[in-house]
């Protein structure tokens, strides 16, 4: 529910829907995610694997920042950029989980 509230910062309805879908898909990657909802961003973090993604709604788009250092952002405003951001997030998540398994 709080994701909907944060998503209201995004103007275009289509982009707002993508924002909600993105948060839903990423939150389902793992049952162990800790989800932190702040007024201007949503952080999903998995303890143990080191995976972290921050989703920040802006006026016409939302930003996806992967990794604790937020080394790069993906700007999402269309289906194409949504798919790119989700693909990248998924790959990073799986890589983190694999790395954690190797280290264990």
């Amino acid at each position, binding site marked *: 529910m709080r994701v909907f509230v944060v998503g209201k910062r995004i103007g275009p309805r289509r982009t707002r829907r993508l924002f909600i879908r993105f948060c839903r898909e990423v939150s389902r990657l793992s049952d162990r995610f800790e989800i932190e909802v702040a007024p201007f961003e949503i952080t999903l973090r998995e303890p143990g694997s080191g995976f972290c993604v921050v989703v920040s709604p802006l006026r016409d788009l939302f930003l996806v920042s992967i990794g604790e250092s937020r080394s790069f952002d993906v700007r999402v405003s269309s289906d194409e950029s949504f*798919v*790119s951001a989700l693909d990248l997030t998924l*790959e990073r998540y799986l*890589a983190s989980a694999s790395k954690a398994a190797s280290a264990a």
Partner: protein
Amino acid sequence: MPERRSSRSLRDVSHLFLSESRPVRDEARRGTACIWLAVADASLNRAHCAAGLAAAFARQGMRVSLLEVCGNLPTIGYYFGMESAEYLSPALDRAALVSGTWNGTVRYCFSASVSSFRGYVGKELDRAAPHAIVVAFPYPRRLSAAPFLSALRDASAVLAGDAAPDGCPPDAIIAAAGAEGAKRIGACMAGMREAFPRAAGYFVADRSVREAGAFERIAFPDDLRRSWARRMPPSDPWFDDLAAGLLQVVSLRRRGKVSLAGKG
């Protein structure tokens, strides 16, 4: 329980994969085995397990039809090397049905909606080879899973084609769970056993889960997670061993040599 790592070729057991009413070799070519993989949580990676099992059947000369109800990512499309726009389409449209083939031996389809599989028309594979049907899905969280399982049975019949015009119940069920699914796995196994009492039951779990219920337990090796990020089906011998064991049990049960593979 120690992990079973010895690779047992399906060729060693595929001659058993038949009913008793026809000559062995002819029936082996006609045989169909239907395996359902019910996953209680995200921690074992449903798509990775399903792709690995399908590839294990294919490596031994079987034609494989793989169906996945994808409640969460990744989907099997990720492991069969699909473009991101394709394998992620169920994230944009729950009713989207995505399909493809791999190496000419595996045909696969996936959707977030079980009703979408009615429209699946997959590429016909080599009909001379024995047929393995693998159906992977997240076990529903709602109280009654019966309507979902019934719809899934119809969906898997689409894959069986002429071989099962009235629906395709599973010959064997694999219930899988990691630490987060430990509380739900009991309900999953009970629901599956109630719906399909004649199917052989297996329970795949990592070390953190103690419960095994009425199903035969198989340990999930932790190191399988190392190949999660690779965009190809895993080829660990664990999958070959699992596939061989499943075929062996299915064949023996069809011959009436064992009453139940599991304890239930």
